[in-house]
């Protein structure tokens, strides 16, 4: 089971996420993520995209099929979304979606070109407030997955329970252009 809905209307989405779950999610849906979530931002996402394009993801033991990437550093200060429209981050979204990432989690609006690339790969963009103390409560495990030399900007793998988010871009539609 990769998706379930609570009585509160909040949808639980577990990783790895299959295509069918993505088909059913729409902008404005409130979700809670369960399972493994990668964290990476400016420094590592372009590198991760290059590893995919060079067929080298096995070398770093990273499997992006059905995954979530949270645009966040991981440090003793916690985790929290950075601005996803930064060149290195937004620029990597199309390639990482092709690599199998199903939910890109961050904050701020993205371009309609990126929305189109997400739709072409049946992937979504979700947003979450920078509520780091609350997130700390939701992390069960964490480890460096790759690019350790980047310090807090390394690629981390977290195990989370109930990480809250809202679907912002899905199936070519953006909440930032359709909001009331």
């Amino acid at each position: 089971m990769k998706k379930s809905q609570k009585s509160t209307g909040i949808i639980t989405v577990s990783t790895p996420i299959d295509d069918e779950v993505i088909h059913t999610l729409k902008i404005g849906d409130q979700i809670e993520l369960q399972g493994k979530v990668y964290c990476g931002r400016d420094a590592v996402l372009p590198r991760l995209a290059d590893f995919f394009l060079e067929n080298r993801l096995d070398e770093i033991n990273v499997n992006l099929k059905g995954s979530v990437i949270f645009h966040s550093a991981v440090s003793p200060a916690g985790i929290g979304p950075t601005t996803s429209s930064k060149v290195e981050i937004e620029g990597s979204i199309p390639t990482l979606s092709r690599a199998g990432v199903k939910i890109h989690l961050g904050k701020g609006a993205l371009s309609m070109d990126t929305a189109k690339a997400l739709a072409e790969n049946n992937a979504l963009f979700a947003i979450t407030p920078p509520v780091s103390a609350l997130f700390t409560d939701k992390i069960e495990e964490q480890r460096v997955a790759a690019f350790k030399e980047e310090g807090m900007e390394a690629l981390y793998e977290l195990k989370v329970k109930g990480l809250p988010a809202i679907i912002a871009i899905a199936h070519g539609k953006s909440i930032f252009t359709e909001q009331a």
Partner: protein
Amino acid sequence: MLTKKEIEKAVRDCLVKAGTTFRADQHKAYRKAIERETNLNARWVLERIVENARIAKKIKAPLCDDSGIPHAIVEIGKDANLPRGWLSAIEDGVVQGLRTMPGRPMAVKGNEVERVEQSGGLFQDPGKLVLAPVTVKSVSGTRIKITVLLLGGGPEIRAKTYRVFHERSMDRVVEEAARWITTEVKNLGCTPVVPAIGIGRTHMEASALMLEAMKEGNLNRQSPLETRVTQWINATRVGPLGLGGDTTALGTFIKVGHLRASGVRIVSARPCCCFEPRKATVILDGTD
């Protein structure tokens, strides 16, 4: 006589409080915003921000993982006695505060090029994040008032310091600054904002006044002009996290400094994020 150790400890505690605690005016502003917010997703965001503040206080954790670049404003009484090395005591207090909170270890290693390109790696020690240049002001009395502010990266991407031709109109100047903010809030992500606006003679002075606006501002005490700026920004309906709704700004802080004979004012405007201004003040006794 005040000692260096007392200053260090006071600054350490002040920094931790700034980074982990919502003030009463923030709690009240969020309560009011939640009550009047009509967009359900926007209200969900506002409630999460308040829940986050409750947890941060309980577990003494940073409100945001971008724990910010430390800044300090020091107001020294004309008759206050300060120990030798008081400024280094403030710097040491910041280092201790960053290690205690803990702050995010985001200081960049290396020479000028390596630092710009972030190619030499990062320090693991949160205390390596050096305090920004300190603003020092002279005031009356014998007390020393130290305010520590933590400035996050998102608002820095969206802030602007530039000239405005005032045309002998305060409205003209403030409307221009509000326009800068309204064009930026959509991409900020961490709305609702509190715009901080400094108006001065030079770029350095305008930035310092913007910081003072953050220091002095109180969401419970808004001037008619500050209220108007807040209303303009809320009219964008960008809303919390860009989700739409009624709450794009919680309030506005404006500080006007000394001005010069000229048709130009230098204006610094910063859209402080949903946790900002993260600030705390300590007052020390400077009598013998």
